[in-house]
């Protein structure tokens, strides 16, 4: 009985004190803002959506998306299913440069020139990654 009284005598004032202290401390909400305050959703960056600036004037533009398993061979070219002039508008994709519809004799074609068929011969996906080999390249911009 005495023991119980002793415990109560210690615990009750401690609880009361901490409750008062909590009241006084500024309440920090987990939301990070007042209830009536609007929090704009942050952008989700999974990749660099915008194209990197070219490192030199003649650099083929980099590809701002993954091209894993895109078929580019004798029979089909997956890139053209969005980037060809016939599709680009509908797919909201940049059209190929018009130089790519010109054969080596300078004739204008309606389909991409054979010399330009293999996109990834010049264009590569962009990545903000360390250089694979040590080099002294300096961008001219």
């Amino acid at each position, binding site marked *: 009985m005495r023991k119980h009284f002793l415990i109560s005598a210690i615990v009750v004032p401690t609880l009361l004190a901490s409750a008062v202290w909590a009241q006084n401390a500024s309440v920090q909400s987990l939301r990070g803002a007042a209830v009536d305050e609007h929090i704009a959703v942050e952008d*989700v960056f999974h990749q660099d959506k915008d194209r990197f600036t070219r490192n030199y004037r003649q650099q083929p533009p980099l590809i701002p998306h993954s091209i894993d398993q895109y078929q580019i061979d004798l029979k089909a070219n997956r890139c053209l299913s969005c980037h060809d002039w016939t599709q680009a508008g509908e797919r909201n994709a940049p059209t190929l440069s018009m130089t790519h519809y010109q054969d080596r004799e300078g004739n204008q074609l309606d389909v991409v020139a054979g010399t330009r068929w293999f996109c990834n011969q010049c264009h590569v996906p962009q990545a903000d990654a360390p250089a694979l080999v040590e080099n002294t390249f300096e961008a001219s911009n």
Partner: protein
Amino acid sequence: MSDANPGFIRRTWRWFWTPTGAISLGALLVSGFVAGVVFWGGFNWALEMTNKEEFCISCHEMQDNAFAEYQGSVHQNNSSGVRATCPDCHVPKDWGPKIIRKIKATKELYGHFITKSIWTREKFEDLRIDLAANEWRRMKSTNSQECRNCHNFEYMDFTAQENRAADNHQVALDEGKTCIDCHQGIAHELPEGWQDRYEQVVQEMAAAGELTLPDGRQVADAKGEIEGFLTSGN
């Protein structure tokens, strides 16, 4: 005359429908039940046996072409360890459509044993665009049912998707498109002229009134509206 001296078929027919004299009703019921279990079980077992990857590639046509190309594709080799094998994409899961597909597939036996229509790589390449068009037509007409066994617009978290994918999936939803409208040739090689052929398939289906999805279904007109709301801070 036929009654006096019935033929074999007639005799068998009569014997079959004459009440049995020696076997009890219980024995008939039990044996009928057992036979039912055996036949129905056997039927489903056979159905499952023909719905396995090993069965599909037991013919060299599939082993050397379709299966070989599927190696390394995202449905065969991926980080999650889930693999979609041949029947997951090419055989409907529902019983009715599955049986229809199985019956149609008997034509493949005819092609393998009799006409040998895709016996060599060259023959396969020649027919590839027609074979692909068949699958495109099937996918388009069922709203890509086999894809939907795993992939659903409703289950997609667009915010977790790559920007380009999220944007285009929203467009697809707004315009009532289905998976195969964009995702052709994800497991097998595309033939020359595939894009024109696909458009032709869709136009043919539209002309025949076979497109079940309404054109321009406005599920979420609100893409711009939502984006505006989220960024404007009002």
